[in-house]
């Protein structure tokens, strides 16, 4: 029933999102006679809403997977090298002429970047298992690299900022095409791994003791998270804190069992991005700015209440 509440909120957010804009058209315009309003809703707002839903769900899901696999409640796509690698990939691709206009190519570049970023963390963390702390370092390098690209092409400052920040402006059906299959695959694989993640989330020795081979399963979980993150980043950019906080909200609602936690985290992620974009359109800032600022506030509150996330 608490998931039901989340679902109702999501529906409300979707309605709000599709009604926001310079013309007063809403969902009903799709069935109305005004061809202009129908165009606006169908060609501009509907894809933007769906991209936001799918990207948010991907980020929430990736965060929940990472927090179990890395066994740190502060793990999120942003600090595992996957998110910042994906941004670097997308930005690098967009400096190559013409690629920026092809969403599928951008998705591919982001996926490659995300996997390279995750692989870099794998190399750096080695067997130390200290993925969280080293992830911050790897992320810092990748963001630094992205910013250095700016030196080569200063005219990209606006675009790069939007990638690093996360923005839904101008998203079309073309952006949705590579995104939704990524979400479906990641969601199905992740839910299949839910029982494994319950065990992984406890401790390595515990996992070994009950008969779970840690390294291959953790790798499978991390690759799934990388896929989901890259899909989201290729479509909308980094969108800070969604991957960190959506799983926390989900955990508070349905508890720590991943069978329920993973889909709920995806719902919470979708809700955050759609609501942030609706709010951002009203205020006039990118969605990522809203999630970053509200997210930082929520983080401070949560961290204080739980003693630094235990």
């Amino acid at each position: 029933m608490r998931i039901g509440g989340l679902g109702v909120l999501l529906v409300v957010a979707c309605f709000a999102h599709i009604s926001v804009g310079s013309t007063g058209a809403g969902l009903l315009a799709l069935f109305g006679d005004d061809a202009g309003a129908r165009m606006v809703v169908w060609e501009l707002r509907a894809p933007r809403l769906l991209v936001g839903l799918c990207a948010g769900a991907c980020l929430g899901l990736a965060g929940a997977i990472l927090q179990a696999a890395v066994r740190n409640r502060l793990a999120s796509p942003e600090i595992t090298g996957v998110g910042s690698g994906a941004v670097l990939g997308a930005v690098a691709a967009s400096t190559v002429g013409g690629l920026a206009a092809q969403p599928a190519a951008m998705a591919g570049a982001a996926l490659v970047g995300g996997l390279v970023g995750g692989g870099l963390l794998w190399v750096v963390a080695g067997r130390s298992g200290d993925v969280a702390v080293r992830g911050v370092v790897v992320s810092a390098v990748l963001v630094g690299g992205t910013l250095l690209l700016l030196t080569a092409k200063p005219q990209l400052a606006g675009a790069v900022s939007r990638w690093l920040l996360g923005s839904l402006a101008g998203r079309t059906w073309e952006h949705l095409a590579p995104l939704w299959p990524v979400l479906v695959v990641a969601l199905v694989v992740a839910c299949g791994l839910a029982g494994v993640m319950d065990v992984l989330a406890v401790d390595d020795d515990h996992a070994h003791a009950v008969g779970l081979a840690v390294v291959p399963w953790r790798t499978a979980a991390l690759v799934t998270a990388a896929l989901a993150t890259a899909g989201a980043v290729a479509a909308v950019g980094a969108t800070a804190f969604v991957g960190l906080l959506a799983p926390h909200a989900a955990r508070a609602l349905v508890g720590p069992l991943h069978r329920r936690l993973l889909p709920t985290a995806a719902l919470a992620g979708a809700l955050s991005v759609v609501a942030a974009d609706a709010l951002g359109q009203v205020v006039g800032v990118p969605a990522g700015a809203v999630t970053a600022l509200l997210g930082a506030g929520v983080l401070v509150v949560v961290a204080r209440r739980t003693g630094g996330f235990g």
Partner: protein
Amino acid sequence: MIAEVPLSARGVRVRFGEREVLAGVDIDVRSGEWVSLLGRNGSGKTTLLRVLAGLLRPDQGAVLLGGDPMAGLGRREVARRLALLPQSAPVVAGLTVRQFVRQGRYAARGPLGMLADTDDPHVREALRATGVDEWADSPLDRLSGGQRQRVRLALALAQDAPVLLLDEPTTFLDLRHQVEVLELVRALQHERGLTVVSVLHDLAQAARYTDRVVALRDGVVHADGEPGDIVDSQFLRAVYGVSGEVLQITTNGLLKTIVVPD
């Protein structure tokens, strides 16, 4: 099918960097007995237990589990034959006792089998045998240390493996809970015919509860036998480097050991 020697180590050597922690250990654990590993800190007893549990691969030598070389068994097959209670494990906030104990069925049910929301008889039986069924639906992080230790024992029992390995099961518990846990393990050993290997710190408790003690010194087996035969003041000096008296009395058929350092 229970092998006569369900667990044994042959010439096990383990090296951490320059230091050889285990320098050729042979041990045979017979079916149905409780063996305790003794020794000072750093003598290699926990390392040996981790090798026996398959958590650590020896640099040389082999571990045989139910007659088969452990190196050739998959992780799940090992867990079906052997349950381990690690020294400590972090507690996942909000996870209930039942949800935690169910994880003991991973080896039997597999990754997809874990998705089902049902208890199998082994889980119910493990909750009952350890006396934790009354808190089965409370979150693990709300329980006391003694209660948690029983729950962790329930998890190991749910694996339904013939061999049980315990790494310092009484650390962090007060005396009453220490006795409770040891009594529980012994009752389970007798009822279910379990083979138990444990690392224990307390010499008197080891002598009181276990059938056989294996003392390690400098990475090799220094003494191996029934506690009544080998635990004396010489043992105390050789194994722990402590000079003192060891008094043993038998009342009602129970061996009681008192250690009095000089």
